[in-house]
């Protein structure tokens, strides 16, 4: 209301200090969001600016150990890209990684949601117990977790074989869990989902804490029951978080490296059980073919972008509020 009268008076001199203050006030108001994102942009720009440029440039060069030492690459245009895209191994690896990612993400999100809901329903003691357990899992360094899982599943004296045999599920004496690609990747999936659940469960539980209890009570008074409440009230409120977690899980699971590489073991890694990140590491960096590695990195970036675009779009639209 204030504003209109001063707008009307705007035709007169802009000289009065009050009007000047308001002008700068508005300009500063508009500058606020930029100021808020500036620190993040600066940090990212300073550190990643050059590496990103280097990565793109490198992908168009032949750059091996020889060139690395002399700090000078040889431009080869799109040769690196075409060599990768013509490699059958690349496409088979891509397919395998896509399936692997889909399985991992689905398991993580579904089990994660169920466990978060479970956390709500149990008594305080069990809740603290379960959440502490989750944090213990979360706090294990990945390298150590892989070692422990390897021990549990190892051929000679693994606990898993011992327990399965003793429970009478079958004879698992010296069962080699790493004999076939399917078996290898299944154990890796279990390991990854196990390690990913704590974050998902705790985040979802925190999000559930934002569900206004009065809304739920009102619905219960109206006669709605469990499943309906979940679908109609809880899920919509959780939607932003669910979309974030899913898109993050896709990004992480697509590029996961340490767990499969260490659990399967370098000596068993072959082109028949590559995942994309291992393919990148072996074909690019192990062989010191940095140009090719850069090309594969960029292709991986594009693949992940394509895979997660649906979720990311929804995420961006949700925020497109006022």
């Amino acid at each position, binding site marked *: 209301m204030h504003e209109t009268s001063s707008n009307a008076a705007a035709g007169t001199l802009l000289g009065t200090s009050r009007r000047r203050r308001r002008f700068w006030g508005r300009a500063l108001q508009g500058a606020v969001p930029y100021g808020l994102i500036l620190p993040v942009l600066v940090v990212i720009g300073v550190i990643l600016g050059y590496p990103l440029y280097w990565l793109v440039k490198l992908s168009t060069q032949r750059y091996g150990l020889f060139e690395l030492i002399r700090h000078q690459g040889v431009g080869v245009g799109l040769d690196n890209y075409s060599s990768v895209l013509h490699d059958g191994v690349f496409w088979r690896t891509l397919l395998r990684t896509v399936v692997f990612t889909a399985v991992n993400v689905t398991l993580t999100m579904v089990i994660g949601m169920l466990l978060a809901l479970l956390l709500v329903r149990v008594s305080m003691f069990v809740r603290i117990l379960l959440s502490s357990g989750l944090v213990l899992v979360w706090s294990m360094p990945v390298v150590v977790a892989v070692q422990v899982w390897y021990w549990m599943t190892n051929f000679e004296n693994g606990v898993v074989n011992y327990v399965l045999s003793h429970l009478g599920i079958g004879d698992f004496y010296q069962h080699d869990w790493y004999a076939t690609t399917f078996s290898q990747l299944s154990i890796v999936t279990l390991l990854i989902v196990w390690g990913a659940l704590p974050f998902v469960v705790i985040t979802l539980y925190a999000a559930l804490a934002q569900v206004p209890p009065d809304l739920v009570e009102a619905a219960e008074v109206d006669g709605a029951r469990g499943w309906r409440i979940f679908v109609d009230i809880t899920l919509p409120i959780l939607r932003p978080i669910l979309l974030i977690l899913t898109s993050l899980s896709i990004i992480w699971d697509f590029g996961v490296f340490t767990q499969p590489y260490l659990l399967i073991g370098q000596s068993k890694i*072959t082109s028949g059980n590559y995942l994309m990140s291992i393919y990148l590491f072996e074909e690019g960096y192990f062989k010191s073919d940095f140009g090719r590695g850069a090309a594969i990195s960029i292709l991986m970036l594009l693949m992940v972008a394509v895979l997660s675009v649906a979720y990311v779009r929804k995420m961006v639209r949700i925020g497109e509020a006022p």
Partner: protein
Amino acid sequence: MKRRSIVALSLVVVLVAAVMAATSSGATQKATASSITVWLQVDAQSGWPDLVAAANKQFQSDHPGVTVNVQYQTWGTHLQKFDTTLAGGGGPDVIEMGNTEMTKYMAAGAFAALNKSSFDNSSNWLKGLAASGAFGGKTYGVPYYAGSRVVTYRSDLYKAAGIKKLPATTAEYAADAKKLLAKNPKKGFSPVYIAGTDWYVAMGFVFDYGGGIAQQISGKWKGLLNSPKSIAGLTAYKNFYLATSRASKTTDETHPNPYDVYAQGQAASIVGPSWFTCCVGKQYTASTAQFVMPGHVKGQAMPGFLGGSDLAVPITSPNQALASDWIKDFTSTSGEKGLQAKGNIPNATNLLGSSVNERAAARSWFVPTAKHWVDVENGNILRNMLAQILTGKLSIQQAATSAGDNIASVLNQS
């Protein structure tokens, strides 16, 4: 006012961080003539730190005012770290490299040429080790130490099975294994525990029969695995393995470690480096001994893989002369004798003693000195071949031929 102060505050934080970053001097300064940096593997830190200290002391008395900064590395990441320092500086003046890692880096020009005669006993360097440090007629790597492969065995189990003398041929060894199996019918017990894809042991058989992995003929590499002699060796390995080892056919020699199987009481003997005796379990230490693995011809040992390390000076080092001096001090006769006392094989023939480890080194084999050999190893070509042979997926002829072709194409890359 509040929002402006918050924007200002965050800008200040960023500015301060940037200024700190730009002026911080926690730097990897260019190694000045007041200090040299040495990268040794963590094996030295836990195995013979006293020898490192002795070398430092000697070096410092020869070069007063220059300190030695030893930074221990792990095998898994030291090459990646080395690559980043080749690109961005801050690298070492001396670096320890595995002998199979050398050729790739020598071919790329990563090291400075060294004056061979300035190092102790260089005219008597073990042939296998010296070859790994030489390229194009120049010396780039100084042999540091080596290890061969021996048999570690349970003398009590041998006694109980009535085996009076140690085997002189692989055939006798296999016969002993039968007796051990009869006396120890436990599930999963191996008279000789050898991991299926342990190519270090398997290739010993190949070389024992006169075969080989690959050969360079007028500049081009040709696979040798499918030659009649190599096939004979692989057949001998397959038969020996199936008769004596209950290990997984597809797994390598670190999953599990043979000495762990031994410590569980599930193996009467294991084939591997001589330092295996460290970890055979308290209960078996007293009854553990070693012998040289016999070949198929009486009186000849099976060729053992001569694993080892070299010391090199990166071309990016600003202190190459000092670095070379440090290497001389570390691999001096007294230094090598110290390494020998810790169970390693010293780098020169005139220093060799008569321990089992050193006797086994009398007949040894090494990998082809090719720029791309590391890629063959990393690609697990030999391991896959062994797994295919042992599981019967492919015939020995087929597996060897495809592996041989594979190896040749990898080695022949530009």
